[in-house]
């Protein structure tokens, strides 16, 4: 649910990076955080285990102003991909305005992609959100690895709604910005309606 304050001229939107464990969600928003100008970002929060697996969520607040002095705040969150954290994933989706589904392109992770997508759809339904109606982007990550599935297969199995999708190597920053720009574009467009 976006929040607009006419007095301070601010709009807040929540974007969630969802996907199976180790698919690169944290890597995506960490890269964004590291490349944003200091004046456009707040503090990044990482709630992770000692082995750097996301335990609850990561959070990056981003601010952008337009010429007329309106400020848009994007709050980026990642979910914890590991199966055991199902309950936490659902909590983070509360009030979501846009979703980036980060899939792991490796063949052996494809079942995990599919299961996580099902889990996401179910969680959205619990909040009365239909996947058809929410801004959504797919990212096929880890394209640098040898055992990846062809993009056509990933697209057919995951992107059943024909949403914009991108190949990525998040650890090198490839595809990260394109994905982020597309989801923000969709969220802003929906806001305008």
């Amino acid at each position, binding site marked *: *649910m976006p929040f607009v304050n006419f*007095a301070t001229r601010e709009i807040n939107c929540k974007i969630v990076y969802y996907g199976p464990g180790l698919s690169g969600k944290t890597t995506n928003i960490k890269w964004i955080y590291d490349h944003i100008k200091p004046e456009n970002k707040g*503090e990044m929060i990482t709630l992770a285990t000692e082995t750097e697996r996301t335990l609850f969520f990561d*959070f990056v607040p981003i601010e952008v102003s337009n010429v007329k002095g309106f400020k848009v705040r994007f709050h980026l969150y990642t979910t914890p991909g590991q199966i055991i954290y199902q309950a936490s994933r659902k909590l983070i989706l509360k009030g979501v305005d846009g979703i980036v589904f980060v899939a792991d392109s490796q063949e052996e992770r494809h079942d995990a992609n599919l299961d996580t997508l099902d889990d996401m759809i179910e969680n959205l339904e619990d909040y009365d959100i239909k996947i058809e109606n929410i801004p959504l982007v797919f990212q096929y990550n880890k394209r640098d690895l040898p055992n990846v599935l062809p993009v056509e297969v990933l697209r057919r199995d995951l992107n059943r709604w024909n949403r914009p999708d991108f190949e990525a190597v998040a650890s090198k920053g490839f595809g990260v910005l394109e994905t982020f720009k597309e989801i923000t574009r969709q969220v802003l467009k929906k*806001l305008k309606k």
Partner: protein
Amino acid sequence: MMLNLRPEEDKELREILTSIADESKSKIVLLIDKSGQLISRSESPAFSSDDVTFASLTAGNVAASEALSKLLGDKSLNHMFTETEDEGIYMIVIAEKYILVSIFDKVSTNLGIIRVKIKKYYDRLEGLMKRIEERAEKESSMPADINIEDIDLDTLFE
């Protein structure tokens, strides 16, 4: 639904939060929504921490505790308290969707005072939030003068 605040509502909210902060001697009083967005805060210029990040963590904290209390069979969680050596953080749910947070110095005040002062303003705050919701539901909320197209994301990056 998209929540939005009109300038006069923003002012009234700030006034209530500032009264609670002043009377309870809190360092700051914040109003956030359960998805983690900061809605308003008291006029507390001395509070320097990043309030946006603070809001997101508080919402996470309350969400996790609510889920825990559900798991234990309790219907709802109304309030919670965390403390560090010097500071207390008191959180109370307002109108089911919002969280009021007081951060206070334990030498200047105490949990009892905080709770009494919040209680004094609770109904007014809840009434105001419900009024805002009802109004927001009725009218489209995108300001006419905001042009989404001229938000340039390229300027964000170095």
